[in-house]
């Protein structure tokens, strides 16, 4: 049969249908300008970051709550509130989320918090052992919607692993970029999934700059950078932490949250998630305080908070908490706004305090955190001691990554208690019997 070629209808210049569920567009967080859904991330007018805007489900909150509770035990239970197609759970992805909210009474006792009041949201149980699986799961749906075939990112390590794994599962090519001096655990986890892994001679801020230039160049055409041109969608993944924490507390907002800061995106989006829950009537509106946690060796946001500034002066990082080593945090100004608006604070701890906190959490709750978790627990302890965090209110501390990725931080001080011959006498002599 002959096929006749027909010129495309000239008048038909409607935007291609992009199905990202309830997402209705992108809006500038700075000036409010609205844009159509697309792989764009900065406002054309003011350079402000673009955020997903929604037509959120209207109607009976009780019904929505039931619908969520009947959903899968992963982030897709919240699909009606996320920029993903309605059938997202049927697509190949890593299905992260619904991680434990650990009631941390032992830790509470040691740091002086009232029993029953302290919780650790332990995100080390995600598929690639960090919270980054949440953000990548959103970004990959956007990548599908926009027709990208290569998935990429600039990363301090965890994001690279999450992108590599998610791309492998979903059938994308991946090519990720990291600073050259990361922990071995993170390098291996970024490389093992078979994508390309490029180590850049420089720190994370250099990697970021390189990726930003790649995106504007023909070399990067067709590439979806989860944290650059897919950033608005990526960021929404962190809201699932807010949703889960509230649902796990019985649809209640905790009084205080302690959140690690690298770029500040996660903290900013957790606040956005809490605001949406309130707007939807899924939780009661009540005050909450958000506390940001940084490592002293990379504490640009903490320094700005303490100095009363609303701009963040970049730093050159030098800390064992490499996952948080972003010296020029894009969402820093928003973190300052949120900490101040909610009555929270931003604090930092040094490398020694980070290691102590990793061991404290492991010893008291059996949770082995990477250095970012050490930062958060260390800052929690410091702020309780300083009387800034109220020990009688409900506090949720985030552990965002797995200690197996940063073994070096505690390797020296976590060796065998004794090395003995396999004999009862030797064991008695070692003095370990009770």
């Amino acid at each position: 049969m002959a096929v006749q070629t027909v010129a495309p209808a000239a008048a038909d210049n409607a935007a291609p249908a992009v199905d990202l569920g309830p997402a209705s567009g992108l809006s500038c967080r700075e000036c409010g300008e609205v844009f159509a859904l697309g792989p764009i991330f900065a406002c054309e007018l003011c350079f402000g970051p673009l955020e997903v805007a929604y037509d959120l489900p209207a109607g009976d909150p009780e019904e929505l709550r039931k619908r969520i509770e009947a959903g899968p035990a992963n982030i897709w239970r919240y699909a009606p509130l996320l920029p993903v197609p309605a059938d997202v759970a049927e697509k190949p992805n890593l299905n992260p989320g619904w991680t434990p909210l650990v009631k941390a009474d032992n830790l509470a006792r040691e740091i002086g918090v009232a029993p029953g009041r302290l919780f650790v949201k332990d995100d080390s149980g995600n598929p690639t052992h960090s919270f980054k699986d949440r953000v990548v799961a959103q970004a990959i749906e956007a990548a599908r919607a926009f027709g990208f075939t290569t998935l990429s990112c600039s990363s301090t390590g965890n994001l690279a692993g999450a992108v590599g794994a998610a791309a492998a599962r979903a059938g994308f090519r991946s090519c990720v970029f990291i600073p050259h001096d990361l922990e071995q655990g993170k390098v291996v986890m970024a490389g093992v999934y078979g994508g390309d892994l490029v180590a850049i001679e420089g720190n994370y801020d250099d990697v970021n700059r390189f990726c930003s230039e790649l995106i504007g160049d023909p070399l990067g055409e067709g590439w979806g950078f989860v944290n650059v041109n897919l950033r608005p969608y990526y960021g929404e993944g962190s809201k699932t932490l807010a949703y889960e924490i509230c649902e796990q507390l019985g649809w209640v907002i905790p009084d205080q949250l302690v959140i690690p800061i690298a770029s500040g995106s996660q903290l900013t989006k957790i606040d956005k998630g809490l605001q949406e829950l309130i707007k939807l009537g899924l939780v009661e509106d009540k005050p909450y305080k958000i506390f940001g946690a940084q490592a002293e060796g990379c504490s640009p946001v903490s320094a700005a908070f303490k100095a009363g500034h609303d701009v963040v002066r970049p730093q050159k990082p030098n800390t064992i908490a490499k996952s948080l080593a972003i010296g020029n945090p894009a969402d820093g100004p928003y973190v300052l706004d949120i900490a101040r608006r909610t009555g929270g604070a931003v604090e930092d701890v040094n490398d020694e305090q980070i290691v102590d906190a990793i061991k404290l959490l492991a010893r008291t709750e059996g949770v082995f955190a990477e250095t970012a978790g050490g930062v958060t627990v260390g800052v929690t302890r410091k702020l309780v001691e300083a009387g800034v965090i109220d020990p009688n209110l409900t506090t949720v501390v985030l552990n965002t990554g797995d200690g197996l990725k940063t073994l070096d931080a505690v390797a020296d001080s976590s060796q065998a208690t004794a090395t003995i011959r396999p004999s009862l006498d030797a064991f008695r002599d070692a003095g370990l019997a009770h």
Partner: protein
Amino acid sequence: MAVNVRIPTILRTYTGGQAEVAAEGATLAEVIADLEKNHTGIAARVLDDQGKLRRFVNVYVNDDDVRFEQGLETATPDGAGVSIIPAVAGG
């Protein structure tokens, strides 16, 4: 001083789609003023109402973030590369 300025995608409407343009100036402020002469409208995108760099734009002279240097007063030596880059998140 003659410098090369790398233009991010969102500003290329002002440079006729060009990713890199030449400009003159001994400091970043002078370079931006010169850019504005040839590509009207670009300065208002990069600078706020007070004439300061907008808080979500990063500018590098060669490899240095100008906020580590003297901001708009940062020297732009002959042959330098200037990059204008929107802030990005994540890690």
